[in-house]
């Protein structure tokens, strides 16, 4: 009997070629599309040759953050942070924020009323570069549009002339908002952005006061991202970017009231992104 055993007659009938073609095509698409991205901070250096000094130094409203060798940080020669050495050492952003909070608050407050939102950083030569970047960050979050490096001095910044009292004002402060316009432009400026958000502040203050009853030392900041579309509507991506408060009730409060932000229509295809920094301080 010459019966042949059925089944496993030999080879697979599956044609492998298309499978391999697909794998190769996917490979090529991945090679082309894997994004290589880089994070950058723009910095302005003092112009070369340096401009003549202003006639009367008091007239120029400048914010200069001075970082001294021993870790003190001053704003316009008034010391606000006594010891910043831990800011650089620690990788924990909560610690950094707590140590720099008096400076953050004062910078935010001053930038609100400044016409030109420029901050200069004047650091002693031996200060770690990472700390300088941290302070550039702090300035940007406080609403600075241009952050520059002051003229380099071998002995470091001019010595401070006063020391902050260490008493921080109590309450909720909205830093100067940072507006970035889209490709086709946008017509919301800092004043309009600020005015719109101020409508929400009474509610946020109420929430904070209520929260303070339970935790009297509640300090921190909330970063809010708002994307505004052509008709003044809030677009996707409008949300709380980060919060160092760790208090759900307040974050909830802000998140709930965010949709009620109103902006004027900007015009077709005009969009912009606004970053708000809200500072909470129990005083």
């Amino acid at each position, binding site marked *: 009997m010459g019966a042949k055993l059925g089944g496993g007659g030999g080879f697979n009938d599956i044609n492998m070629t298309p499978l391999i073609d697909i794998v190769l095509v996917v490979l090529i698409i991945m090679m082309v599309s894997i994004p290589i991205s880089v994070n*950058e901070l723009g910095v302005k*250096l003092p112009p070369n040759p340096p401009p003549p000094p202003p006639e009367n130094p008091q007239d120029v409203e400048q914010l200069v953050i001075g*970082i001294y060798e021993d870790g003190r940080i001053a704003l316009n020669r008034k010391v606000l942070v006594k010891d910043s050495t831990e800011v650089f050492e620690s990788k924990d952003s909560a610690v950094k924020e707590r140590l720099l909070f008096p400076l953050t608050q004062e910078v935010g407050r001053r930038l609100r009323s400044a016409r030109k939102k420029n901050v200069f950083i004047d650091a002693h*030569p031996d200060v770690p570069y990472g700390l300088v*970047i941290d302070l550039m960050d702090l300035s940007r979050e406080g609403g600075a549009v241009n952050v520059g490096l002051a003229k380099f001095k071998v002995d470091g910044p001019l010595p401070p002339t006063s020391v902050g009292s260490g008493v921080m004002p109590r309450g909720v402060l909205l830093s100067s908002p940072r507006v970035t316009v889209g490709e086709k432009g946008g017509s919301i400026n800092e004043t309009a952005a600020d005015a719109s958000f101020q409508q929400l502040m009474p509610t946020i203050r109420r929430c904070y006061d209520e929260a303070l009853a339970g935790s009297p030392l509640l300090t921190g900041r909330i970063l809010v991202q708002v994307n505004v579309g052509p008709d003044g509507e809030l677009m996707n991506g409008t949300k709380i970017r980060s919060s160092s408060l760790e208090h759900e009730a307040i974050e909830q409060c802000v998140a709930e009231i965010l949709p009620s932000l109103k902006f004027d229509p900007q015009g077709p295809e005009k969009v912009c992104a606004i970053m708000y920094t809200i500072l909470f301080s129990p005083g």
Partner: protein
Amino acid sequence: MGGSVGGGSGGPMADINVTPLIDVVLVLLVVFMVITPMLASGKEVDLPMSTSATTIQDTGQFIVISMTADGRWWVEFAEADRDTFIGLVQGEFNLRPESTLLVKADRNLKYSQVRELLDLLNEYRFSHIQLATGKEN
């Protein structure tokens, strides 16, 4: 006559063993996945962290100047000393006139060291400089 005609094309299909082919493809895939991040420019540096930096696609539009923690300067992947530095930067600029300068400096460096680099660039009119940072939220 019992000869069989043209026995070549008839008969069972060639038993191409596909397994090695797929192995090769997968290896190529893995190799590319590993190499691509290394194509990101400049030397490896411990970048300072920033929450407010903007994230930009690296499409080769940067001339990357790196300063490692030991204080050495690099233009792209070539080390430069204080004298040859500007020459190298200018050379890169001539090849790619539309590029932006990106400075990757280690976060542990002293301000004076980074400032020396930035001021030297500024002196030769390369004043539009971006500083590279890591991103944190």
